[in-house]
């Protein structure tokens, strides 16, 4: 559908607590990185897509203005895409449709967040509406912990098994992050440490939760003609999917989670994927919480419903497993929210371009990237492949 579109380069900041730089300079770090990587200059770019979490996060509104210089967007067409936590993947989608429509040949997509500058959980609480739900939603962890409990109950999964599997995810992702030069949290953790960490919102404990990160990510999307002209190894966009549910947490089933299931299906159909666990070589799943990562495996068809804890404990989703998930350490180790979804896309692109360095999954040809947002409400997917 539309013209073929590929990612031809990505740039990331060193994510973490970055009080050494101002917010615009942080954004520029990622933008400079993608220009250095591709050898392109701002003059080559036809349009820019920018996005972040809501203005409350850093107390600055409509940041496409603030970052006009840092993104080198002056004099260029601009789009400002924001869909809460899924912003990053929505930015990638916008860039994709822009190039696919024939309206641009080279689009720069930039996602950014500087979470250490504001109060992220308070911001997240103001995502909930002010009449009724805002009082009860304890930021993001509250929503996700309720979702996790519903999932356990639905499939009668023994709590201990789930706890073990979640701890296993935490341990392996924290190990993975050591091989990702851009990751925020680089910390060795053990199963016991995860299982005994402080309770945040039961069953979620401290080491089940992502950090607050400062970071930015810049990705250049190109038309087929431009890929040919530049002669760079691309990551082709094979499928895009997105779905959203009702605002009120409680209206929709979050276990058989339709927005996640249908977003993946839309992307799979476009990419011609029938058996994702077999056909995908790697997945970058948006995993701010260990428990939720397992639910995504089920919604994306990586395994049957209720089956993921067993599969996790068997090592199916580790870097040496059948379908490596989040070899970058994922959102669990790095979460500058407005950038996070785009980092998933960038990491998936790096994998199929063979440029993921120390966390490269050997011979990865087809990769899934994902982000989630809203009040457990939105899911977006982009599938990338080494072949058109």
């Amino acid at each position, binding site marked *: 559908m539309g013209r073929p579109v590929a990612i031809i380069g990505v740039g990331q900041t060193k994510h973490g607590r*970055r*009080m*050494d*730089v*101002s*917010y*615009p*300079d942080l954004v*520029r770090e990622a933008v*400079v990185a993608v220009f250095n990587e591709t050898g392109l200059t*701002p003059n080559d770019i036809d349009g820019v897509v920018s996005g972040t979490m809501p203005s*409350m996060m*850093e*107390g600055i509104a409509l940041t496409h203005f603030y970052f*006009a*210089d*840092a993104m*080198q967007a*002056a004099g260029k067409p601009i789009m400002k895409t924001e869909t809460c936590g899924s912003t990053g993947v929505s930015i990638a989608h916008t860039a994709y449709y822009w190039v696919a429509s024939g309206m641009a040949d080279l689009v720069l997509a930039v996602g950014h967040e*500087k979470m*250490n*500058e*504001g*109060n992220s959980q*308070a*911001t997240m609480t*103001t995502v909930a509406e*002010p*009449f009724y739900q805002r009082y009860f939603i304890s930021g993001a962890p509250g929503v996700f912990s309720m979702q996790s409990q519903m999932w356990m109950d639905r499939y009668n999964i023994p709590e201990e098994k789930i706890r073990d599997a979640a701890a296993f995810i935490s341990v392996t992702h924290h190990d993975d992050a050591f091989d990702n030069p851009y990751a925020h949290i680089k910390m060795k953790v053990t199963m016991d440490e995860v299982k005994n960490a402080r309770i945040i919102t039961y069953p979620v404990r401290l080491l089940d939760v992502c950090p607050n990160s400062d970071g930015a990510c810049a990705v250049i999307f190109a038309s087929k003609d431009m890929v040919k002209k530049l002669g760079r190894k691309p990551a082709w966009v094979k499928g895009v999917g997105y779905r959203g549910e009702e605002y009120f947490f409680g209206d929709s089933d979050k276990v058989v989670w339709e927005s996640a299931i249908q977003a993946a299906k839309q992307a799979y159909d476009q990419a011609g994927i029938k058996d994702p666990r077999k056909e995908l070589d790697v997945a970058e799943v948006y995993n701010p919480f260990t428990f939720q990562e397992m639910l995504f495996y089920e919604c994306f068809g990586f395994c049957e419903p209720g089956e993921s804890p067993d599969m996790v404990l068997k090592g199916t989703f580790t870097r040496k497993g059948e379908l490596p998930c989040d070899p970058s350490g994922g959102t669990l180790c790095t979460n500058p929210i407005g950038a996070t979804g785009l980092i998933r896309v960038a990491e998936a692109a790096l994998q199929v371009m063979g440029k993921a360095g120390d966390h490269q999954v050997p011979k990865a040809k087809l990769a899934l990237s994902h982000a989630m947002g809203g009040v457990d409400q939105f899911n977006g997917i982009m599938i990338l492949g080494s072949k058109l």
Partner: protein
Amino acid sequence: MEAKEYKTIKTEIRLPYELAYGATWTRFFEGLKNKTIFGTKCTKCGRILVPARSFCPRCFVDTDEWVEVSQVGTLIAWCYTNYKYFGMPTEPPFIGSLIRLNGTDVNFLHLMGGFDLNNFDEVKKIIKSGMKVEAVWSDDRKGHIMDIKYFRPL
């Protein structure tokens, strides 16, 4: 907020922020404490940018050549502000102004002052675009943009 004739919820959102200056603006605002105004020069286009920038918005190269710029300049445009709004720099009336400091290549946003602002007709006699102006410093300087109290006509 006045009460409305239909039912409403009144709500307020206050959140704390701690925003990083970064190296360049740390040095710029330190400069204000010491009654100096720093700009940076772009080595590519040669423009002197004030306040100091970490990079040239046009050339997209680092601007690490520091210059102390003149505290005297030319008034480019002004607006006599006579209403209150959240975040206003001082009680109205005040005069938002664009000022081209001598030797620099962009306009510096600040206030005009140093004379009685209360009578607009009198103000209009004093203030003219194109006039020479000079920075007046606050005695209590904290490394904030209002360390410069305002610019006064020369």
